[in-house]
């Protein structure tokens, strides 16, 4: 579904990602792990079009997206969340989700200005769907609360709902478990598994929290110093000596 071929990213001579290939299959949860500075977030930014790869190519559903603008990548079914959450703080929760739905419930300026039925119908439908999505993640009772006032765990969840609102085929989650408490992590795991199994979503998960990664991932890719170390099932990864070396800090020499 998503395929990275030999991606290289350089900033001012500094190589952040070096020759990384990766593929995410439909309907799987794919985890991307690695120590700090391994280039995980850079990969997400490349996939979503915020950075352009210096070399290599990026395919989504067999089409190259390397030169596509960010918003078109999102519209083609690839949506992300952010490491430090990027909610629209002044908006209510439901408005946040409605921004995600904006493209689905399109109406023209004219129909708003002339008060045509189309805008009212679409606004209503969007609000309804947003509410249903909030229900799915069991946060509908916060619908009218200002997003900026929510506790961190809830904000993450709102961000996931907002991403779902764009009807993605592949969800990119940038450290969704960072800063969450134990029971929140368990709930998160449940949600992600549900999304995969019920909606058939593919998920690319970037995280260090092993409680998440190891519990739900179908496959795992490990990066270190911007290089690909290994890809495989959770069990394969656990027993891979290169991975162990990478985490223990001694695997610089492996290519």
């Amino acid at each position, binding site marked *: 579904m998503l395929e990275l071929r030999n991606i290289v990213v350089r900033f001012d001579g500094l190589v952040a990602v070096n020759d990384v290939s990766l593929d995410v299959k439909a309907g799987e949860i794919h985890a991307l792990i690695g120590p700090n500075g391994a280039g995980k977030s850079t990969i997400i*930014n490349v996939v979503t079009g915020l950075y352009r790869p210096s070399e290599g190519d990026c395919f989504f559903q067999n089409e190259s997206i390397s030169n596509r603008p960010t918003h078109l990548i999102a519209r083609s079914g690839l949506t992300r969340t952010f490491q430090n959450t990027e909610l629209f703080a002044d908006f209510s929760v439901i408005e946040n989700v409605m921004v995600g739905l904006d493209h689905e419930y399109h109406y023209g300026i004219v129909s708003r200005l002339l008060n045509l039925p189309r805008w009212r119908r679409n606004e209503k439908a969007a609000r309804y769907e947003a509410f249903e999505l909030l229900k799915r993640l069991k946060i509908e009772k916060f619908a009218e609360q200002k997003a900026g006032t929510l506790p961190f765990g809830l904000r993450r969840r709102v961000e996931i709902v907002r991403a779902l609102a764009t009807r993605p085929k592949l969800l990119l989650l940038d450290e969704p478990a960072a800063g969450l408490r134990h029971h929140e992590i368990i709930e998160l795991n449940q949600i992600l598994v549900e999304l995969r199994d019920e909606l058939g979503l593919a998920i690319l998960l970037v995280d260090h929290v092993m409680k998440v990664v190891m519990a739900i991932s179908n496959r795992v890719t490990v990066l270190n110093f911007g290089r690909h170390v290994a890809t495989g099932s959770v069990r394969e990864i656990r027993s891979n000596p290169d991975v162990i070396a990478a985490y223990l800090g001694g695997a610089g020499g492996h290519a």
Partner: protein
Amino acid sequence: MVETFIQLMLGGVIAGSVYALIAISLVLIHNGTGVVNFAFGDQLMAGVYVLVFSQHFLGLSLAPAVAIAVVVSGLFGLAIQFLVMAPLRNRPVLIPIVATIAIGAVLREGIRAFMGPNAWPVPFLLSTSPYHIGGVSIVPSDLAILGTSVIIMLCLYAFFEFTKYGQAILAACANPTGALIVGIPAGATTTSIWILSSMLAAIAGIVIAPLTTLTPDIGLIAIKGFAAAVLGGFASLPGAVVGGVLLGIIEAMAGYYISSAMKDIASYAVLVAVIVFRPTGLFNRASIRKV
């Protein structure tokens, strides 16, 4: 022909160093506090009026009058920071910017009412009699502007590169949270930037005003300084100086080789072209925001 060209260049460079003097301070405030200071031109004007006031009504001689002007202007910068900028610190950036517009108007209209709308004579710091070198006339008092802007830029450069305090300010500008962790209070750096830039305003004014005629509307020239800062990329002090001088030269050339009617249109058109085709300014490389 060659003399004409050199004379033209010289005129452009002098006018450009006026713009550069202003651009330096605008860039300083913008980088340090995130605010575009629309009051700067009026601060510059007010600084000179303090000088004039000290001379004409307090009977001081030039040197102490200059000192008073610079100090009063610095105190005014302190007042701006404490009374206006600090309370507005967490607001959308447009609000402190509009506050500077209002502060500028307070100064301009206050001075107009108190010192009158007519021009005041300001003492020249250097002679206005030109030297003629090979058909080109060079005026010492004009060179004072160029000299001052170069000196100020060098001083600022030295201050930020070689003093601990300057380094601290730079660090705080680049990363307020980080600076806080290291123990540099964020408020202190913005305060010192406001004081510093306000003192620069008075100095710039005292150098510029004798040559441009002191009226309450002299601050309008800051628009050109702003344009110069844009041309230089709005990020670096050397960029501001080069931007200012370049703008002056463009104006002079357009005024002579195209027509005086096209002078401003040409320079603004260059500005638009720069922004559209080289949005980070002529002298900066693109930077990437970390997510």
